[in-house]
């Protein structure tokens, strides 16, 4: 009993409720006429889409920069890579690889600048990160209109300039990871194997990175900056590296998201993308200053599971679409819970 109690306080009551809620949704699904196999495919697909964006938050949490509400900085780098690869006419695997390759220098540069900024505002990173993200998205909205893109599938037809709000990836690299080694059983069961493998690969790389010398030093900086400095670790340098890695993962994350979704969303699209990612990470059991790969994978699965299941199940039960309300309350409630929790000394 004591052990159970300890586990509940350790893991957090909200997370346990969410977990059982999701189980309940899956159990209830067949009774209200929602197909389980379609639901599982949807959950897997959305898990793959979002997991790397969630993963992108981990380095900054570990280095003590808090929850990266400035994720749009990385997303913008990814969008630049994606649009430039399209502009160059790259398609298929070459296109996707090209988009990744082109986005990396942008991500490193932006991440470095963003890291320099965050190093000067220690203690207030989260609010500032949020507004840096917002500023970047709106600033790039101007650039999407002004940059001299000319590929006809990307620009507005009548004006001949300015990128479209959504660009289809159909003839470029849409679904390319999803379809790689994919398994299709029957009409409605589909496993996007390639994307899941890619996600796991990224998670493995980040996991190994945190086992390396740099990664350990980064965790040390996050746990106790004064001790880390005393141990000869440059706090600012580690934080900068964590921000750069986070930004790079953000860029990869959005490219994976888009290839699965099939469209590039520009302009105000990325404005609020950081919030669901943050919520997913926290649902997975992370706190403001501690996050692991398990948190990322479990959190994304739980959060996306609920997002997929609630509209179908709740709608069939209540005959009304409450899923939007549930999504807002759930995701923001989770962030609130994490922010208001007394930060525990790490184990």
């Amino acid at each position, binding site marked *: 009993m004591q052990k159970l109690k300890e586990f509940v306080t350790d893991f957090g009551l909200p997370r346990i409720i969410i977990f059982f809620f999701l189980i309940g949704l899956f159990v209830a699904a067949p009774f209200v006429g929602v197909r389980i196999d379609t639901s599982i495919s949807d959950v897997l697909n959305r898990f793959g889409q979002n997991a790397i964006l969630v993963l992108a938050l981990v380095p900054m949490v570990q280095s003590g920069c808090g929850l990266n509400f400035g994720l749009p900085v990385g997303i913008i780098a990814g969008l630049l890579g994606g649009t430039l690869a399209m502009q160059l006419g790259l398609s298929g695997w070459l296109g996707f690889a090209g988009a990744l390759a082109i986005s990396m220098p942008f991500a490193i540069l932006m991440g470095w600048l963003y890291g320099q900024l965050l190093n000067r505002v220690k*203690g207030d990173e989260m609010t500032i990160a949020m507004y840096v993200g917002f500023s970047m998205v709106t600033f790039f909205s*101007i650039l999407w*209109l002004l940059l001299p893109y000319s590929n006809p599938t990307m620009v507005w037809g009548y004006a001949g300039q300015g990128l479209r709000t959504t660009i289809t990836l159909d003839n470029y690299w849409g679904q390319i990871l999803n379809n790689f080694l994919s398994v299709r059983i029957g009409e409605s069961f589909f496993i996007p194997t390639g994307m899941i493998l890619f996600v796991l690969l990224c998670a493995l790389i980040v996991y190994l990175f945190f086992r390396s010398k740099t990664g350990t030093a980064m965790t040390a900086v996050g746990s106790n900056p004064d001790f880390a400095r005393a141990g000869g670790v440059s706090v600012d340098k580690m934080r900068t590296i964590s921000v750069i890695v986070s930004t790079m993962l953000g860029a990869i994350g959005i490219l994976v998201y888009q290839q699965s979704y099939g469209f590039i969303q520009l302009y105000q699209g990325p404005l609020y993308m950081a919030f669901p990612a943050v919520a997913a990470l926290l649902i997975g059991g992370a706190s403001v200053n501690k996050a692991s790969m398990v948190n990322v994978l479990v959190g994304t699965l739980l959060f996306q599971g609920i997002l997929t299941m609630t509209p179908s199940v709740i709608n069939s039960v209540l005959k009304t679409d409450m899923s939007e309300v549930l999504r807002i309350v759930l995701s923001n409630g989770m962030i609130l819970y994490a*922010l208001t929790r007394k930060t525990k000394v790490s184990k």
Partner: protein
Amino acid sequence: MIKKTSIRRFFADNVVVIIFLVLTAAATPVSGLSAGYIVQEILTRIGRNSFLVFSLILPVMAGMGLNFGMVLGAMAGEIGLIFAVDWNIIGVPGLIFANLVGLPIAIFLGWLCGEVLNRARGREMVTGFILGFFMDGIYQFVVLYLMGSVIPMRSAAITLSRGYGIRNTLNLDSVRQSLDDLLMVKLFGINLPIATYLIIILLCVFIIWFRKTKLGQDMRAIGQDQIVSNASGIPVARTRVIAIIISTILAMVGQIIFLQNMGNMATYNAHRQTGFFAVAAILVGGASVTKATIPNVFIGVVLLHLMYIVMPRAGAQLFGSAQIGEYFRDAFSYGAIALALVLHAWRKMRGVEIDRAGLRQGVASAAPLEAIEPIKEDTL
């Protein structure tokens, strides 16, 4: 030398204001709008927006940063207005009724917000921001599902055709500009909503008076140092909650004034941008996270809204696209908030370094010189 640093200090303290001033000064002639039109718009917007911006002052005084949780007050005001329209109470009595309905909701939400923020000391701003999102969900639940089904609604005109839930746009014809028109004076062809201005002046007087009361002094003390305040017998947690409650109530009244001027209300979106505009305005007016005054509010409202008026037109003239102007003003407003927050955090960190250098002084005399020197250089 002293003069030079003082000029620098002035620039450093007001860099956000100066950037906005230069920007709007450049964009105004380009926009090609007439002076009369601009003046009229600005005067209207002062009446419409400044009350909302004032709601931010008290929490800043109490050291809680910019109260993004003011959105909760805006929601309370909207619920009040929904009932005023539903009961068809016309004109100023309708507004008073809306305030009376909103008041208990605002007090409750303010208390809730205060309690939540007390659990998130040191990161009040981001917590308040997320709390606003969270409450938006609850607000949607209440207004879209409970109103008309659980909460009785009398008017079929404002409920959705399915029988419950409020329509997406609420027509506020019954109270439209009733406060503004109460005492409208026309001067040189420009309309001045004197009644609204009087209420705002009343609020200014209240804030000046409030600062001198025991409670106001307590808040300022807490804003300076929570530990010392606690040691000297000020109930810190309680006073912080009171600051947020008052702020939430003011935001509620502010939102009602804002919406009566607009004349209709986007039921589910009206409050989404409220916090952003209010925070942007007070920061553009030269306030910081720890210091906000009455002039900051007025300067900010004038500058921010001047930019919002002229930018789309300037964009249309320069780039042939009003859209660019709109993105431009959004980017600059977000950028202004980011810049103001960064400058403040930066200065705070420098302060910590000075303290640290002061401690070291006894040990090594070379260190403080090194540590202090760049401060003057870098405050720019």
